[in-house]
């Protein structure tokens, strides 16, 4: 019983049925730039939603590179649904959001034009 309990932190590390991509948040001249580590994910499979200070990025990573006759020796990349919520220091309700996939990163640009509400 004790042995099983000790395994618990591992079990709960990513306990949601979703995985979370890593993200960098940068301040820019006209707003914010969020760089998501989401290689192999099509921009069309990603949804960004903004509610108050909260930005949620969710989507699905599909394993599209499946060659005929190949098989996995090992796998570390998480596939299937993901979701990441970020709490921003300011309210972004009225900001403009742009998406761009570049070099394996998903860039989310939030343009506020200085209209930020705390």
């Amino acid at each position: 019983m004790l042995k099983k309990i000790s395994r618990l932190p591992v079990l709960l590390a990513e306990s949601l049925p979703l995985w979370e991509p890593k993200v960098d948040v940068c301040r820019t001249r006209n707003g914010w730039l969020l760089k998501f580590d989401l290689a192999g994910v099509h921009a069309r499979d990603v949804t960004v939603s903004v509610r108050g200070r909260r930005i949620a990025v969710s989507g699905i990573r599909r394993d599209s590179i499946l060659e005929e006759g190949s098989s996995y020796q090992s796998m570390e990349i998480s596939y299937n649904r993901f979701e990441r919520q970020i709490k921003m220091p300011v309210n972004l309700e009225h900001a403009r959001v742009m998406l761009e996939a570049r070099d394996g990163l998903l860039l989310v640009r939030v343009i506020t034009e200085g209209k930020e509400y705390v």
Partner: protein
Amino acid sequence: MSEETVVYTLPVLPLKSAVLFPYLMMPLSAGRPSSIAAVEAALATESKEIVVFAQRDADVDAPTQNELYAIGTKAVIRKMNRSSEGHIELVVLGMERVAMLKLDGSEPFLKARVAPLALPEDKSAEIEALQGALIELAGEALALAQPNAPQELRGLLSANEDPLRLVFVLSSMFGLDADKAQSLLEAPTRLEALRMMHRYMAHEVQVLELRNKINTEARSEMTKEQRDYLLRQQMRAIQQELGEKGGEQAEAQQLRERLEKADLPEDILKEAQRELDRLEKLPPGAPDYNVIRTYLDYVLELPWRKGTEDLLDIARARQVLDEDHFGLKDVKERILEHLGVLKLNPNAKAPILCFVGAPGVGKTSLGQSIARALNRKFERMSLGGLHDEAELRGHRRTYIGALPGRVIQAMRRAGANNPVLMLDEVDKLGHDFRGDPAHALLEILDPEQNKAFRDNYLDLPFDLSKVVFVTTANALDTIPRPLLDRMEVLRLAGYSEDEKLEIAKRYLIPKQLKETGLTVEQCTLPDETIKRIISCYTREAGLRRLERAIGRVARKVALRVAEGNTGALTVRPDGLADMLGPEPFNQEEARRELPPGVATGLAWTEAGGDVLYIEATLLPDGKGLTLTGQLGEVMQESAKAAQSYIWSHADTFDIDPRLFKDAGVHVHVPAGAIPKDGPSAGVTMATALTSLYTKLPARSDIAMTGEITLTGLVLPIGGVKEKVLAARRAGILNVILPKANQKDLRDLPEDVRKQMQFSFAERVEEVLRLAIPQLSERMAAAKTHRIDHAA
């Protein structure tokens, strides 16, 4: 949740004895070819999804639809790695609950058509309450199972918002059985799942509590003893530091120390320790406290195993015995014999001796002397007048003021388990309704039983088998037969005049002089003087009166010396009257001449022997036989037997039968105030009667003793030595004894044997012929007369 049901087909991973829950990750290992194929198929899809079902029976390798639970979990493969053994290690994350619609069992892996089985959204106060209770229970269980669990763990539990998730987390945390986990997974509503989990957890907590209780009990039992020991050690240290031994604790401690040092037999030690444990638990005010204390004192002081070393030097022992006592050859021999036996067999049973003899013959001092010769401790107790069995065997501890019996007390005083224990006056034991002490003596004096003598007070077996018991008695007839049977009787006969003289010179005079502070030069007692004292101032078998008389003489001399008479004083026989007064006993002068009808007998008394005159006279008008002089029954019968014998043999002795018919006979035995009994006067009676009827006087210088039978046989008697010495004292130097007593002469001192003349008779006629000189002629005449008559 949308109304339409999405149905999809996914590879199946069957799980042996485990259940995957939604929201939870689980490391798995796929080893079966079909499982590996299923995992590979899942990996070859874009979404890496697989469905996991638990097997109903963990032993089945290729399960069919019926052998899998119908409800499972859709999962996504998070990570995987092929191991060197060809297994696939993978981590799966449960996504949602699904129901199996159809299992496709075709090769190479199982596929299933499944539909999601979402739980209805239900929220109620009951759910909330259950969730709260469950979290509490889980906290308890966690505290019991792992008291040092990190705080975050508990934080995680309470942070869970979805009650279902809480149930699943707890289930995997406490490792519920697969059956129970499966039933949780299959729960139709959250409420049901919570209820189930609550039940399981409650049970779990109980089990944990019980386990903990058992653990802590085991631990506390061990630590209590350690704690006691530690405290005791500390207390001892403190008391030593303070230099005090006060308080009952110190007392118990002291007892414990003594107990450790004492050399007790195993079972005794155990019993003593038990009592000590009891003592320690008692408050000192308790009435039992002192009882147990005294008891333990006794147990500790008794010489359970301690004995004195025997000095097995026979020559020395002989010397000691000779120094202390003159004569008493038999007794000394017996002691030396035992010493010899001890030399060969150190474990020999000690003898149980009984010294029988007149007062003052040295029975008690002989006991002391034996102890000295053996180099053993000497203890003495008088049994005279003892009438309560408890005196010997003690009282049970339940009585207030109970003490062990005298035997155990004597052992304690002796401090050795092999002393010489003298039981004085064993013939004077009393008995009453409280019991008969003689019966207790039976056990004490039986070598077969006294190995484990149980005193009522001690209630522990004490070994008395090494004790040399010496009992003393003046007479044997009051000692119960079974008791007498256990003892080896040694008779200490009275001393002869010469022995007394010797003893007086060697022991009594030096002792009395020393007590009065005189030197040997200042006071001289010539032999004649001592002899005069012995014969005229004392009449006894022992020596007490002699010693007192000598003491008186010594004091008179001391007075004169103190008055200024410095010259050496010699006490002459004539001077004795001045010092000791007139002679209380006339020298038992033999009667110079005996009239017909009187004969000289010899008697044995407790004070030694005595000369006895038996007088018979005819009563012209009387009838039958009159006996006077305090005669006992046996003696009366003896007289009748003598009379009958004479009557029946009247013609042999030429007695006129008319004498019997016309006159009665009166037999008197002086001194009339002293009770007499015993058969040994038989021949004397016969002589007196014969002398009376024949009118021939008996010899006055001849004394006789012996029992007679109706047919005229002379039977042996006891007390030969005393009787012979009494005759000699009276100046009668001829003694007639039964033939069978010839061997007893050995006991007599050499000079007595030389000086005196003994005749031994087998038949009464022989006695009569010797005692009445003219009888032989008369008989011869009677014979001729009878022959004439016949002719």
